[in-house]
């Protein structure tokens, strides 16, 4: 059980990734697909942070004296995820704007109906 407890973070990350993937693949509403994209992205970010985790670790910031450098978590995935979050916002905004355009063009956000319609 303790082993499973240790990997709860990984389980959570992959859980989020699979939930996001499920939503993207099965939903017909474009807004829901974009929400799925957001969930998937959160899962990936969580996974990257987990990789750099140190047991009983602290943030890699020397905010006060006496912090043990040995116990600090890996700063590289954190910097990477900072980047990924910002890119995620950009992707989300662009996806939403395309969804708005599609809605104006087809009058619906249902992907099935869009596929059936002629251009």
């Amino acid at each position, binding site marked *: 059980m303790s*082993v*499973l407890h*240790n*990997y709860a*973070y*990984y389980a959570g990350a992959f859980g989020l990734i699979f939930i996001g993937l499920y939503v993207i693949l099965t939903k017909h509403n474009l807004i829901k697909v974009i929400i799925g994209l957001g969930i998937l992205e959160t899962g990936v970010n969580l996974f990257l942070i*987990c990789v*750099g*985790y*140190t*047991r009983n*670790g602290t*943030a*890699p*910031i*020397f*905010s006060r004296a006496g912090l043990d*450098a040995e116990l*600090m978590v*890996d*700063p*590289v995935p*954190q*910097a990477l995820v*900072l*980047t990924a*979050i*910002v*890119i995620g*916002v*950009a*992707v989300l*905004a*662009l996806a*939403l*704007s*395309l969804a*708005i*355009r599609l809605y*104006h063009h087809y009058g619906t956000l249902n992907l099935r109906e869009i596929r059936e319609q002629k251009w």
Partner: protein
Amino acid sequence: MSLSLAKIPFGQPKPKIARHYIDRGIEETGAVNVVTSVVVSYRGFDTLGEVTVLFVAATGLGAVLRIAKTKAAAIEPASFVLRTGCRVLFPLILVFGSYVLIHGHLTPGGGFQGGAIVASAFVLIYLGCREKRINDKTSTVLESLGGVTFVVVGLIGLAVGGYFLLNFMPKGQPYSLLSAGVIPVIYIAIGFKVGSELTGIIDNLIEESK
């Protein structure tokens, strides 16, 4: 099952590169926040590319939505409570955002986080005072200023010491506000850029939904 699970590394000792950043980061960059020193100093060029991605996405959003401009409908004014609350909170959030933005090399935070907080203050204004619009020109100027500052600081490093984004300014005393050389300058520039870009994205989306 549990045996194979136990082989997945978790909470292991850090790789060499992370060790180097944590052990030598303060003396090499002067920044107390190791994540900031990685983002702005060690991998500053990467961050420049990231800022470019955000810029291209914001521009693309503007281009996609500009074609579809519809006629503006009458806006329903917000309630008194919402309007007053937004007016009270707006300067406070702006101050908090600037604090996070300026102290990126000392505390958790920095340009991206501070910029997002500043943009959230403008979202509040859009919610509360619906007839108010940000000045398009001002936000474009601020955005360009941020980007140009980033590139110019990098190019000065190239001219002075031979490589892009060299930390050419004095590193100062760690733990003080005026330390870490060019890192706060670049992060403040990023903050202006991110804040005005996110505000522009929201402005475009709101204009569209009217």
